[in-house]
């Protein structure tokens, strides 16, 4: 059979990471002795050797093999790792953390009513608590294993030994470190040899300390990339504590920015640089002519009309329409009875102020009662004193309907028994004379 360990030129110049140690064929021996490395033929022999080394009282030794050799833990006297305990702790942390996270988010910080279901109900929270248990336990086993194994460690003195590079292939090695209390430059190799070693090598540290340290460029790279990775967080932290007049930075604009112009935006196309186009002199926008003075402005021959426009049929339906509009737009201030004590004045009174809206039905001061219909219409359209105009909210016909309803309100609020048709009068209790 062939011996894989032939020492061809060049074959031994590389450490595991390809670090050169050789200076022109001569071995470098000036470094301190790190330990001895013995090779064995089979896993079984390695195990026996390990047992002998352990029995001889060595503690700073290790076996190296391409796969885990079963029974070697006991032979070497390796104590059971505490890793399972750590993983159990990680798993418990995952369960509790998962439950706490869900409780805090959905039951405490932001309870969210979904079909009246309880904000905190364990069965619905089991799947995520289970997954977080597994996740943290998996992280603990993975990272815990590497940390306990003191890996990653890309450099090790044994990598300088050529035979050691076959440990991931077919070699079974046993290494004893020189720092072991029982280490002896004569006796230790002899012990290993007597245990049936194929070879025993002394392994020396590289005299150049730099070879044992992380190359500077790797350190620099790690520091630089860590620093760069912190930049986004720094920017976010700064943004949270400072003010800016600049608009938000949109990574994904969604539909916030659309290729269209809104009013009052600049636009290069026109001379005045504005996107919106004003009315041209001598033109009227389509549907905005409003030539009928009576209907659109309440004017008849230049004076407020006392009647109603011809387009409207005065009937109960129109009064009801007016009532509906009145109750939507007018009652907040004028009140349902039109006496000017709606919700807003009541609120003003409740907060200690004194303001009331115009009494629309006041017979003792009949300003509104005496207003022509056209003026009432105009007041609704364009406002009066603190009242704003409702032209934008209420179409013309509805404004007329409100005028009609106000008239009805004025009549009803100041009614006498005579106003009621005779066959409806029975059973009606007239109140005291209406207070002025």
């Amino acid at each position: 059979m062939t011996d894989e360990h032939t020492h061809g030129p060049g074959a031994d110049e590389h450490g595991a990471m390809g670090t050169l140690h050789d200076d022109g064929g001569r071995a470098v021996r000036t470094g301190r002795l790190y330990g001895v490395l013995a090779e064995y033929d089979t896993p079984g022999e390695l195990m026996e050797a390990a047992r002998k080394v352990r029995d001889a009282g060595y503690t700073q030794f290790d076996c190296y093999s391409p796969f885990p050799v079963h029974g070697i833990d006991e032979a070497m006297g390796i104590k059971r790792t505490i890793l399972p305990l750590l993983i159990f702790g990680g798993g418990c942390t995952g369960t509790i953390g998962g439950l706490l996270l869900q409780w805090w988010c959905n039951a405490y910080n932001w309870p969210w009513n979904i079909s009246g279901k309880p904000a905190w109900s364990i069965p619905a929270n089991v799947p995520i608590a289970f997954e977080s248990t597994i996740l943290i336990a998996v992280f603990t086993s993975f990272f815990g294993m590497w940390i306990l194994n003191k890996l990653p460690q890309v450099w090790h003195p044994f990598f300088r030994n050529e035979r050691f590079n076959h440990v991931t292939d077919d070699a079974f090695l046993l290494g004893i470190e020189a720092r072991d209390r029982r280490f002896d430059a004569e006796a230790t190799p002899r012990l290993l040899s007597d245990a049936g070693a194929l070879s025993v090598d002394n392994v020396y540290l590289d005299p150049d300390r730099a070879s044992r340290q992380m190359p500077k460029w790797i350190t620099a790279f790690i520091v630089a990339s860590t620093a760069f990775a912190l930049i986004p967080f720094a920017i976010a932290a700064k943004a949270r504590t400072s003010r800016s007049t600049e608009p938000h930075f949109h990574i994904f604009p969604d539909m916030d920015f659309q290729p269209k112009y809104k009013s009052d935006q600049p636009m290069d196309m026109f001379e005045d640089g504005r996107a919106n186009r004003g009315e041209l002199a001598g033109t009227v926008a389509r549907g905005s002519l409003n030539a009928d003075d009576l209907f659109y402005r309440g004017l008849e021959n230049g004076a407020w009309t006392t009647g109603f426009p011809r387009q409207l049929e005065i009937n109960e339906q129109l009064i009801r329409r007016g009532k509906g509009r009145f109750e939507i737009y007018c009652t907040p201030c004028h009140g349902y009875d039109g006496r000017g004590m709606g919700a807003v004045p009541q609120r003003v009174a409740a907060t200690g102020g004194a303001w009331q809206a115009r009494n629309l039905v006041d017979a003792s001061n009949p300003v509104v009662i005496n207003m022509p219909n056209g003026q009432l219409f105009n007041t609704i359209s364009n406002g009066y004193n603190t009242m704003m105009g409702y032209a934008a909210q209420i179409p013309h016909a509805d404004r007329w309907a409100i005028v009609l309803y106000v008239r009805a309100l004025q009549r009803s609020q100041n009614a006498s028994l005579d106003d009621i048709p005779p066959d409806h009068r029975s059973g009606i209790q007239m109140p005291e004379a209406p207070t002025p």
Partner: protein
Amino acid sequence: MSTADATIDRHRPEGPDGGKAREAFRAVTRDVAWVAEAPKPHKAWLAALGVSSIMFAIGLYSIYVLVTTGIGVWGNSNTVCWAWDITNFVWWIGIGHAGTLISAVLYLTRQTWRVSINRSAEAMTIFAVMCAGLFPLLHTGRPWFAWWMIPHPNDMQMWPQFRSPLMWDVFAVTTYMLTSILFWYMGMVPDLATFRDRCAAKGDKLRAIIYGSLSLGWRGSARQWHRYERAYLILAGLATPLVFSVHSVVSFDFATSQLPGWHTTIFPPYFVAGAIFSGFAMVFTLLIPARHLFNLKHIIKDEHVEAACKIMLATGMMVGLAYATEFFIAWYSGNLFEGFAFINRAFGPFWWAYFLMVSCNVLVPQAFWFKRVRRTPIVIFVLCLLINVGMWFERFVIIATSLARSFLPAQWSYYTPTRYDVGLFVGTLGLFFTLFLLFFRYAPVIAISEVKGAMPEAHAGKRH
């Protein structure tokens, strides 16, 4: 010369075992490593990579159109609101599960034959989960807001709704993905160290640095192996309930809804059995050509393939039992809607999909009763392909038939995919095969250290 001082060297060619054990271990290393070390890739590999890259490009284009236009480019409608996207999600996730099953469950049950296929099955898991994750992500319509699902303090004062099965999905699939990657990577470290040492010995410095960094300085020390094996065993123990939970959670997406055909307690076990079934089919769809191409038949042996065929036969019949049970319960429950849903499933507008599903998933695996079938790779390959098709249709049937015929007849509709549905599915197939081909070329495709540990030579020289 070694840099060390050779105090003693009686390097005999024959030890007590005549060096035979070492020779056998060397052979394993060599046979696996040659795939990655071959200076030029195999022509078939290049051709396959070309095809899969084109498929992947189609997928990227479909994603581009989808993201820039909106999910209206898909065939999904108000009625059939989950369609190919969720079908593909469930299908891919299910495929992934065989990898975990092979690496974790078979490890715990000491099925040593798993060592020849576990590495590639685990890789398949990761790539399949990557493909699966794309679909719900893209189905959100605005995938750049996917990070809202990660609970974190934010200016919107918004927390995820943890009682929703869709959030359970997020946690289950993320945990599954991370666990699979860590499990896969951890298993690969000793083999990456093997590659590192081989590259270093040959003077291939660049590769030695890459494999060296990835192998974290692994030394194969017994003290390290001790913790490593502990961690591996516990990871396998954690991955086993995880794999069952993941597909159960996926089935909750359906089972917790009130749609007839979805609202059923049989879903979790039924989905898990289907997942294992389809996953095994996918593993062997990949491995049967690969072991032929890369000359690995003496490692991925015929017995291993045969064992997998038996698992497919068993899980296929479980799936068949689930189909039958669904029908039985639909009848036995006396629920009108449930009864209609299942009659509609078999004889409604998607009858063709239903019968495709039953033939591929229940009838096709019956061929595995015959030893001659289990021993004929080409037949197994074809049957595996059919099972993949059948399992895809199973998910499609569950989703599309139930949605297309829900409670209100006014809402009934039919589903037809668009070219972007097809493009994205083809794209994920492309992504999957591309990643798998790259993995097969550059990574240790067989768990070298585990194969060595499972060989009789691993006990050479031990006193009994």
